[in-house]
C-alpha cells in the first residue's frame, strides 16, 4: 500500500508515458563504443558544472578542471573586471598544458596575476589575451591578437560555474529549465563551510547516479547504519518518495525526513544523541529559509531532502536542516569514473556546531564507501552480458529517465553529426 499519493495514472512512471515501463537495456553502461559516442554527444555538448564561485574569491583566482570525458582540461579564472572566464588549458605556442603543478594530469588552484607557460614563458592576461612572447622578433609576422587563449563558454547559475564546449548550445538558464528557475533564491552563498571528497570508482558513470537517484536500496544496503530496531522498521516499510519529477533531460526526487530530528532518541546512535546530528545533518537549523518553489514540490510536512539531477553528471541535494551537497561523476572510461562530493554548511559559529558537521561528513563517507564498492560488483556482472535487461520499479523512475536520455542524446548526435561512410566513393 502506498504511504504517499501517486499521480492519477497510478504510478510516477506512467505519468510520463514516453519513458515506458518495460525492462531497461543497460548496454549503454558496458559498451566502449557507446561511451565514445557519449563523449561527443553529451560531454562536449551540455553544460557541465565545474564548481562554485567561492573558489574564485579575488582577481586572479583560478582553478583547473580535467574534463576527460569532454577531451580537454579547462582553466577557470576571475579576471580584472570581476568576470569569471574559462579557457582551454593549452598554450597557443606549441600546445603545452598551461596551468598545472608537479603532475600534469592533476587539478590545481590558486591565484596569479597572469598566465605564464612553464615551457617558453609566453604570458597571457587574465582575459586570455596574449601579452608577452619570449624573443618575439624570432617569429614570423606574429599577430599577438590572433593567439589569445581559446575560450570556453562559461556561465553562472546561482553561484555555480558551468562550462560548455559547444558554442551553439542554448544559454545555461534555458538548459537548466524549470528546476533551475525554481531553485533561484536558495541561499547557496550563505553555505560556505565546505568539505570535498573524491574517489575513483570502477563503474560506468551512470551507475553511480542510479545509486543516488533511488532510495529503494537504502533500507537494505545501509541497514547496519541504523540501530537494529530502527533498521527492521525501515526494511519493513521499504522506501517511497514524496514526489518525482522529470523536466527535459533533468530529474528530481523528493524524500521524507529520515531521522532529523528523531522522534524517539533510542532509535539513534549514542554519538548522534550527544552531537544532535547524523547523516541528515545537524538536527538544529542554522538559518531559516523561505524556500523557492522547486523545493519540497509535494509541500509535504514531513519533507526531508530533495535530489536534483542536472543532466548529465551534476547532482544537487538540499536537506531539511538547511545545508546542501553536490555530487559530480566524471567519466574516465566506459567502466570507470571519478566521483566527487562536496558538503556545504552555514559556517560553524562554535566548536559544537563544527563537530556536528564532522558527524555528517563522516556518516556520508561511510555510506559512500558502501555504495561505491557495490557499483564495482554491479559493473563486473553487467559486463558479462548474462543478463542485459533489468526491470526498474516506480521508485527507480529517474534511472529509467537517465539511461533513456543518454541514449536519446547519442541517437540525436548520430542523426545530425556523423556522416555515414559512402562505401562507393
Amino acid at each position, binding site marked *: 500500500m502506498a504511504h504517499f499519493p501517486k499521480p492519477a495514472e497510478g504510478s510516477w512512471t506512467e505519468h510520463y508515458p514516453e519513458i515506458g515501463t518495460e525492462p531497461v537495456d543497460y548496454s549503454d553502461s558496458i559498451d566502449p563504443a557507446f561511451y565514445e559516442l557519449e563523449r561527443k554527444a553529451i560531454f562536449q555538448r551540455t553544460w557541465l558544472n565545474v564548481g562554485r564561485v567561492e573558489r574564485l574569491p579575488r582577481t586572479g583566482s583560478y582553478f583547473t578542471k580535467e574534463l576527460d570525458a569532454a577531451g580537454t582540461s579547462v582553466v577557470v579564472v576571475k579576471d580584472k573586471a570581476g568576470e569569471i572566464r574559462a579557457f582551454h588549458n593549452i598554450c597557443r605556442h606549441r600546445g603545452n598544458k598551461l596551468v598545472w603543478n608537479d603532475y600534469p594530469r592533476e587539478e590545481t588552484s590558486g591565484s596569479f596575476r597572469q598566465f605564464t607557460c612553464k615551457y617558453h614563458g609566453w604570458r597571457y592576461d587574465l582575459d586570455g589575451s596574449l601579452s608577452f612572447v619570449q624573443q618575439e622578433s624570432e617569429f614570423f609576422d606574429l599577430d599577438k591578437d590572433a593567439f589569445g587563449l581559446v575560450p570556453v563558454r562559461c556561465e553562472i547559475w546561482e553561484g555555480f560555474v558551468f562550462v560548455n564546449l559547444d558554442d551553439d548550445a542554448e544559454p545555461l538558464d534555458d538548459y537548466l529549465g524549470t528546476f533551475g528557475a525554481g531553485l533561484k533564491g536558495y541561499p547557496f552563498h550563505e553555505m560556505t*563551510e*565546505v*568539505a*570535498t*571528497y*573524491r*574517489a575513483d*570508482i570502477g563503474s560506468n558513470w551512470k551507475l553511480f547516479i542510479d545509486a543516488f537517484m533511488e532510495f529503494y536500496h537504502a533500507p537494505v544496503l545501509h541497514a*547496519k*547504519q541504523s540501530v537494529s530496531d530502527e533498521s527492521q522498521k525501515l526494511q519493513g516499510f521499504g522506501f517511497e518518495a514524496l514526489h518525482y519529477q522529470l523536466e527535459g533531460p533533468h530529474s528530481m526526487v523528493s524524500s521524507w525526513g529520515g531521522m532529523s530530528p528523531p522522534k524517539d532518541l533510542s532509535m539513534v*546512535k*549514542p*554519538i548522534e544523541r*550527544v*552531537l544532535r546530528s547524523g547523516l541528515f545533518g545537524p538536527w538544529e537549523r542554522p538559518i531559516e529559509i523561505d524556500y523557492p518553489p522547486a523545493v519540497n514540490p509535494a509541500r509535504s510536512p514531513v519533507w526531508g531532502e530533495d535530489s536534483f539531477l542536472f543532466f548529465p553528471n551534476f547532482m544537487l541535494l538540499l536537506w531539511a536542516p538547511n545545508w546542501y551537497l553536490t555530487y559530480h561523476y566524471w567519466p574516465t572510461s566506459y567502466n570507470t569514473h571519478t*566521483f566527487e562530493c*562536496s558538503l556545504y*554548511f552555514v559556517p*560553524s*559559529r*562554535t*566548536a*559544537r*556546531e*563544527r*563537530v556536528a*558537521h*564532522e*558527524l555528517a*561528513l*563522516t*556518516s556520508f*563517507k*561511510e555510506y*559512500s*564507501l*558502501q555504495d*561505491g*564498492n*557495490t557499483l*564495482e560488483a554491479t559493473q563486473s556482472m553487467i559486463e558479462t552480458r548474462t543478463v542485459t535487461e533489468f526491470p526498474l520499479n516506480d521508485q527507480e523512475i529517474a534511472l529509467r529517465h537517465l539511461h533513456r536520455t543518454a541514449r536519446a542524446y547519442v541517437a540525436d548526435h548520430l542523426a545530425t553529426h556523423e556522416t555515414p561512410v559512402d562505401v562507393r566513393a
Partner: protein
Amino acid sequence: MPMLPDAFADLEPFAPTWCLKDEPDRYATRLASTMDEMQTFYDAFLPRLEDALSWLDRYDLDDIPDDELAQNLLWLCYSLVCVSFPVEVWRQPRVPDSGASMIHQIVAPAV
C-alpha cells in the same frame, strides 16, 4: 607537556594517537587500530564529549587554532566521531563490503 586542557587530563593517554589535524590521518589511524583500542578510547571519551563541547564553546571557533590545547581537544572530538562507526555500528575498523575502495577528503573546513 600535556597536550590537552587540565580538565581533560584523564584523556591524555589518547592524545598522542588521536589528536590529528587531518581527516586522512584520522581515518588511517582508525584502519590501523584494533577494535579494543578504539573501544577503550570511545568508552573513555564519549561520556566526556558533552563536557568537551561545553569547554570548547567558550571560544570563538576561529580562535581555537591559536590555542594548542583547545585545538588538540577539538581534533580529539573529530577522532571520536571517526571511531564511532567501527565501535557503534560495524564492529570492525573498515566499512563492511567496502573491499579496497577508498574515498579521500581533498578539501577540509578551515577549522
